[in-house]
C-alpha cells in the first residue's frame, strides 16, 4: 500500500503538478481510507525517490584528480551521453587512478584508468 502512495505522489510531482496541492490531496485520501499512519513513511520514501530521480537528471562526472581531465574532454563525453544542459556535478575519487567517469540519466561512460587496469588484470589471469 505504501508503495502505491509513493508512486502516486512522486509521479504527480514529476509530472509538474502543484506540490503543495498534491501533498494535501494525497494526505486527505489517506486519512479517508484510514491509512494516515503510513504518512511519515510515504513522505520519507517519496523524498528518497525524488532525490534519486533529480540526481539522475543532473549529469555527474567523477575524476581522479582536479585538473587532470580537460573541460573539453568532459563536455565531449557528456554530449556523447546525450546531456542537453551545460551544467554537471563533479566529484573526486582517487580510486579511479586517472581518467574519469560520466553518467547522464541511465547512461554511464567509464574512461577511468581503474577500469582499464582491472580489465587488463582479468585478461591476464584468465
Amino acid at each position, binding site marked *: 500500500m505504501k508503495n502505491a502512495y509513493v*508512486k502516486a505522489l512522486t509521479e504527480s510531482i514529476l509530472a509538474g503538478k502543484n506540490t503543495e496541492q498534491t501533498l494535501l490531496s494525497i494526505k486527505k485520501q489517506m486519512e479517508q481510507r484510514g491509512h494516515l499512519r503510513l504518512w511519515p513513511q510515504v513522505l520519507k520514501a517519496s523524498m528518497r525517490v525524488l532525490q*534519486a530521480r533529480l540526481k*539522475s537528471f543532473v549529469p555527474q562526472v567523477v575524476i581522479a584528480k582536479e585538473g587532470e581531465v580537460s573541460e573539453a574532454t568532459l563536455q565531449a563525453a557528456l554530449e*556523447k*551521453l546525450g546531456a542537453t544542459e551545460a551544467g554537471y556535478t563533479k566529484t573526486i*575519487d582517487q*580510486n579511479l*587512478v586517472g581518467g574519469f567517469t560520466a*553518467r547522464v540519466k*541511465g*547512461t*554511464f*561512460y*567509464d*574512461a577511468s584508468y*581503474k*577500469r*582499464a*587496469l*582491472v*580489465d*587488463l*588484470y*582479468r*585478461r*591476464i589471469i*584468465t
Partner: protein
Amino acid sequence: MSTTIIDRIKKEIESLDTTTQPEEVGVVVSVGDGIAEIEGLTKAQMMEMVSFDTGAGASVKEVMKQEGTLFGLVLNLEEDTVKVVILGESNLVKEGMQVSRTGKLLSVPVGEGIVGRVVNTLGEAIDGKGVIATDKNMPIERVAYGVMDRSSVNEPIHTGIKAIDSMIPIGRGQRELIIGDRQTGKTTIAIDTIINQKYEPKEKRPICIYVAIGQKRSKTASIMAKLEEAGALEYTTIVATSAAEPSPMLFLAPFAGMAIGEYFMEQGRDVVIVLDDLSKHAVAYRQMSLLLRRPPGREAYPGDIFYLHSRLLERSAKLSKELGGGSITALPIIETQEGDVSAYIPTNVISITDGQIFLEGDLFNKGIRPALNVGISVSRVGSSAQTKAMKKVAGKIRLELAQFRELEAFMQFASDLDEDTKKRIDSGRKYVELLKQKQNNPMPFYKQVISIYGANNGLFDNTTPEKVSAIETTFLDFIMRDRKEIMDAIETGRELTDELVEKLNKSIADFKEANANYYTKAE
C-alpha cells in the same frame, strides 16, 4: 617471473584497448533473498545478464581481489523497475549500487574440453582441474527444434538393465522419466545407463551429462567417483548444484546442461542427459517465483511450472539427417512422496515425457532390484528403436511376467494349484530372478539377449529360482569362453539369425549337460 609470462603481459598491455562505449545502467532500489529490484535499465531484456558494480568506491587492488564479476539475471520486467536474480553472493549487493546491462542473454561456455569435467551452472570448472578450454557460448534458454528439423526415434540407447532394455526400451532422442520414492534406485538406473555407454563403439558412444539439481555435495562426489572408477567420466560432464546454492542456480542448472547437450547434438553426436531431479527443480523455481512476487497456483507453484518443464524437455530431440542426425535423450528423475504419482509435478512430467520407469519401494524392500514395476512402466516410442535381436527375445518375457503378476496372489495356496498354474508361477519367479541386477553392473545388450533367449528356451527349466543368477553367470561365461562367435555376431549384427538361434539352442543343451549339478530335477 619467467620471460614467457613477461612477454604475455607485455603483449596484453600493447593490445589493450582502453576505449569504452556508453552503457545503460540502473540502480538497486531493494535487495533481499537473492532478488534485487533495479530502477532504470529500461531496455533490459528477459533472461539478459546484468553486472553489479561491486567495485564502486574500492581501490584497484581491492577490486582485483574480488572473485570476478557478480552477475544477475533479468526475470521480471515491470513498469518502472526490473527484478533480477543474483547469480552469486547476494550479500555483496547493496541498495544504491550501480548495475549495467551486458546485452548478452545468459549463456554457458562449451567446447570439447567440457567432457570429463565437473562444472557449475555458469559452466565454470569446480573440479580443481583448471580452466576449461571452450570455443562457443550456448544460450541457456532456447526455443526447441521444430517438427521439420526432427526425425523419428529409431536408434536404441542401451541402459544395461535387462528389465528396461527388454521391456521398456529407450530410443536416442526420447524423454524417459524415472520416477519413484526416495531410496528406490532412481539415480542408480541413470548412473548405470551412463556406465553402460562404455560398451558402445566409440563412434556411436553418446556424450553423457549428469545434472545434479540441489543434491548433497557428498552424493555428487560419490557419483563422480563411481563414474571415474567405471571409466565413464571420460565421456561424461557433471553439472553440479548443491542444496546450499541460491535457488536461481538450481533453476538454471538443467537448462545449462541442456545447452551443453545441444552443442554436441548440433555436431551430429548423441547425448544422454540425466536431470536429477526435477522435483527439486520445481521447488527451486517455486521459491524464486514467490520471491519475485509472481502469483502462486496449485501447491504454491507458479502458473508456468508446466511450461518450464515442457520447454526444457522439448529441447531433447532426434535431429533430421540434414541437421546432422544428432540427438539428446533425456532421463528426468522425479521423486514421489509415498508413491503418489498423482501429485502436481509428477503428473506434469509424466504427461510431458515419452514414457516412465516406475520404481517401487515395496519391490526394493523385497530385494527385487532394480525395483521396477513393469506393469505401469512404459516406453511410448522406444520399441521402434529396439534392436531386432532384443525385439525377438523380449516379447515372451513381458507376457510371462504379466501372467505371473496375475497369479502372484495365489502363490500362498501353492499346494492347491493345478500343474499349469504352478508352472507359470515358477517360470514367472525365474524371470523375476533373471531381471535382478546388482548396482553399477550394467550388462551389454548382446549378453542380455543371450540371457533372455536362454530363459525363453529352457535354460532355467528343472532348476529352482534361487539358482537362476548363478546359472546365468556361468552360462554367459561359457558362451564367452567357448562360443564367443555367437556373442560377437549378436554385437555386430544386432540380429538373431536362424543360424545363431541354432547355435544358441545347441549351446544351451551343451551347457546343461556340462553343468548337471545346477539341475536337480529329472528332465
